[in-house]
Structure formats: C-alpha cells, structure tokens
C-alpha cells in the first residue's frame, strides 16, 4: 500500500521518566564524607597490586587501606568540549574535561577544569581541587580543578 496525498504517517512522541536512587555503598559513602566534612580526598590501596586507586574500591576481604591523595595533581590528557548537548550536559560551553592523576594516586580520573582559559590548558599541567560549598554526595562535590598557584619568590 502507499500513502495517499491527504494521509499522514503516525510518529508518536513520548519520553521516559523513570526515577532512580543509586546506593553508593560503604566505600564511596566514606569517600564523599571525607570530602564533605574535611575537604580531603581519600583513595584505597589495592592489596594485590599495591596501587592506589582513585576513586576508591572495596577490598575483597573488607579491610580497605585508605590513603589521602591530592588535592593537587597532574593533567594526563584533556579535551575542550565546544558542541552543546543541552539535554545531557547543561553546563555553559566551552568546558574542559581532563584526566587528572592526584598526588599519591596511581590511577587518573576524569573531572572538569575551571578558572582557566581553554587555550592555556596543557598536558602535564599542575591543578588542584576546588570543593563545592554544599556537598551533594556525588563527584561534583569536587566542583572542578583549577591551575595550581605558583608562588614567585
């Protein structure tokens, strides 16, 4: 069959709204508690490889070895995002996503940079954490990383 000139094809528009509540668990809850209460970042040392993992992981035997890391660290790689996807990320563009290895950690993790001009970002650059004024229990309790201040004597 074919469509007649006075007929239309049906395209039904809808959206899905499903509520979620994700349990962070004992380990991540402690991680966020340190940030909220002390403005300190803690990672865990893997009992098998001795590597300090950031974000922290649960140990198989339940005896985690907690290690304070950061707040300073080094940019291992980065990108500047200039294409807007408002439904997914409402942040004002451009934003800089950087892979940051905190001092004392053996793994890097992804976060955003602030207080920096996008064309000044370099791999290997030193940055430090800026903590959110109000903690919400997610990774944006570290609001962003900014260039580490270099004091000139």
């Amino acid at each position: 069959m074919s469509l007649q000139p006075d007929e239309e094809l049906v395209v039904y528009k809808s959206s899905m709204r499903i509520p979620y509540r994700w349990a962070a668990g004992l380990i991540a809850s402690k991680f966020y508690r340190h940030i909220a209460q002390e403005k300190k970042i803690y990672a865990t040392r893997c009992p098998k490889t001795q590597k300090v993992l950031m974000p922290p992981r649960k140990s198989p035997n339940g005896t985690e070895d907690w290690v304070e890391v950061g707040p300073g660290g080094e940019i291992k790689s980065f990108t500047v995002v200039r294409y807007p996807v408002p439904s997914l990320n409402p942040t004002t563009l451009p934003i800089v996503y950087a892979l940051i290895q905190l001092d004392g950690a053996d793994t890097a993790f992804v976060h955003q940079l602030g207080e920096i001009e996008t064309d000044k970002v370099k791999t290997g650059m030193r940055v430090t954490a800026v903590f959110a004024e109000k903690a919400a229990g997610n990774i944006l309790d570290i609001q962003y990383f900014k260039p580490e201040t270099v004091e000139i004597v």
Partner: protein
Amino acid sequence: MGERVAIIASGQTNHCSKRTDVNIPEMIQEAVDRALLQANLTLDDIDAVVIGNMEHFEGINLSDMWASEGAGSVMKPAMKIATGGTTGASVAACAYYHCASGLFDTVLAIGWEKLSESDPTGGIITAFDPIVERLTLAGAVGGLAIEATAYMKTYDVPEEVFALAAVRSRKNAKRNPHAHLKLDLTVQQVLDTPYIAYPLHYLDMCPASDGACAVIMASEKRAKDLCPKPAWIDAVVCRHNHAWIGDISFGKNSTLESAAVEAYKIAGITNPLEELNVIELYDPASYTQVSWLEYLHLCEMGQGRRLVEDGVTAFEGKLPVNPSGGVVSTNPIGATALIRVAEASLQIQGRADERQVDGVQRAMATGFGGSYWNEVFILSA
C-alpha cells in the same frame, strides 16, 4: 549436541529488599567471590564471563562494562544477556553454549538486580510496544493476573489454592539463608492482603529484591578435575513467544510445555513425576505454582491443585517444588532464573544444607519472562 557440561559451583548474596551498603559491582562481587570460594578457584581460572540484568531497571544498561570489576571480566571475553525475566536462565544457557561448543573450559555466569534502585514496573513497561500495549497493559502484574483469572474460570480453582502455594514457598524459604521473605503465614493471611490486580493479592506476588547469583560451569574434563560431584547439564531448552499478549492463548503456558517436552526428550525422561526429584520453578505469582505444574506434564490439566493440596510439591513430598522458597520469596529479577539453576545444582551436589532434599539424582530448573517465554534446564548427578 555439543560437549558435556557441568555446574561445578555457585554463589549468592543474601537477598533482601535494600542493599545500600554496596554499590552494584560490589554486590555482584559478593556472589562471584562465593562461587569462586566454593569452587576453590580464582578469577585466573575463569575463561569467559556472561552477565545479565534487566534493561532500564537501574538506569545502567551496559552492565558488562559498568560492573566489570565486580564481575571479574576485566581482560576476559565477556558478554551481556538481557531477555527480561528469563535473563538469568538465558545467562546460564549462554554459559552452557560457551562450554558445550568446546571453545571454553570454565565460564562464569552472573545474574544480578537491585530492584531498590528504581521502579521495576517503570522498567518493565519499556519492554512493551510503545504505542500499543505500553499505554494499556504494560507491567509485571497485569499479564499474570489476566492469566490467573482465565485459569480460575477454566478449571474452577479458588484463590485459596494459590495462597497455599505461596504459604508453603515462604515457609521453605526459612531453610534458605539467601532467601528474602522467610515467613510463617496462613492461607487466610495471604487472602487478607489487598488485591494488587484481581485475583492476585499482595502476598500472592513475588517481592522486589536486591541480589546477585554466580554459577561456574565447566567442560566435562575440567569439571571432573575440579569438582568431586559436578551437577551435569542434561538439557537446556528455550522457547520465546509472540510480542502481544492477545496473540498468546490465555491459561495455556505453551512455551513452558514445549520446552519441557523437548527437555524430557533430550534427557530421556518419560515420566517426570517419577523421574524428577526436585523442581526449582520460576513462579512469579502463587497461582503459577499451581497452573504451570500442569504444563510440565506432572498431572492432567486442571489437576495442579491436587499436587499442591495433597502435599506432593511440599518439602517432604514426592516431588518438592522450590525448597529454596522460589520466586515468591526472592526476586532480584536478573538473578532470579539463574538462582533456580544454581539451587537445582546445589540439590544435585548435596550442597543445599537445610533445604537439601534427600537423594536428588535429577533436578529441573525453569526461567520465565517476557511475553510468556520459558527456559527449562534438567540437571543430573
């Protein structure tokens, strides 16, 4: 036919309504660690991983990636299987295919779900045609309730019989440390709970649970090396069905019947009531434990109530059904059907502790989901 395959070990979390002390990979790891411990293996001994859960339930749809640390699949071949309620059985079937193909010797099968993290019916709705049944029917309870009404009408079976099956399962659950609802109930207490959807009362339905299950399968040679008493997999049969509920004949679980008949043929079973020693039936609602026994050819149509009322399916009966407590006691959906397979293997291996049925040589496990899909496993000593 493929190579011979056995289940050599399994592990489960202690299923409950909310596991806020662990995130998803951490919860999965508990089950994996327990399975490895029972097998006396480490992750280095595992050749491949198959994992499954319900889509949309936790809003994390690539669990093969997202849960890889807990699943132990880092730097291993791994794949995700999602087939609705049958997911856990499909995970087991896929792990079986891995070993039976001769390509893998040891495969870790994982099913998990954290129903506390979302609205299960909200997730299930996304399985239905978005412009037809999603607007009028979709959800977990409605389809089952419609079938229960048809069954009651066709065979003149009262709600009390369904309630008895639920009472018995939750009493069995008291023997199982991994079960979620361990309850001493009366038939009247079940009937006194409100209808969720007529004729199914609140306590006729399965709970929403958080939990994970892991099963380790091995090829024949490895199984004999690794395990003193493997649970051999004699038959794995899957049947899917039409998408829309109106195309499925009500009061007739044709996929379960077709899968069971095929499985009996493969396993050489001619009289299942005599030859099976225990069944772990995927019973999402109380009435299914009455009706679906008929499609397993354990009795004539409409006579499932006799098996229940006469105690044939009771823990001490001739053919115990769900000594673990079944789905009406524990339901972390993506794990639920895999738990049936794991429990059946524990019965064969003599590892079921307080819920152990005496002298189990042959066990059946089923998985149910989607639009009346079914998967049937037969295991033997």
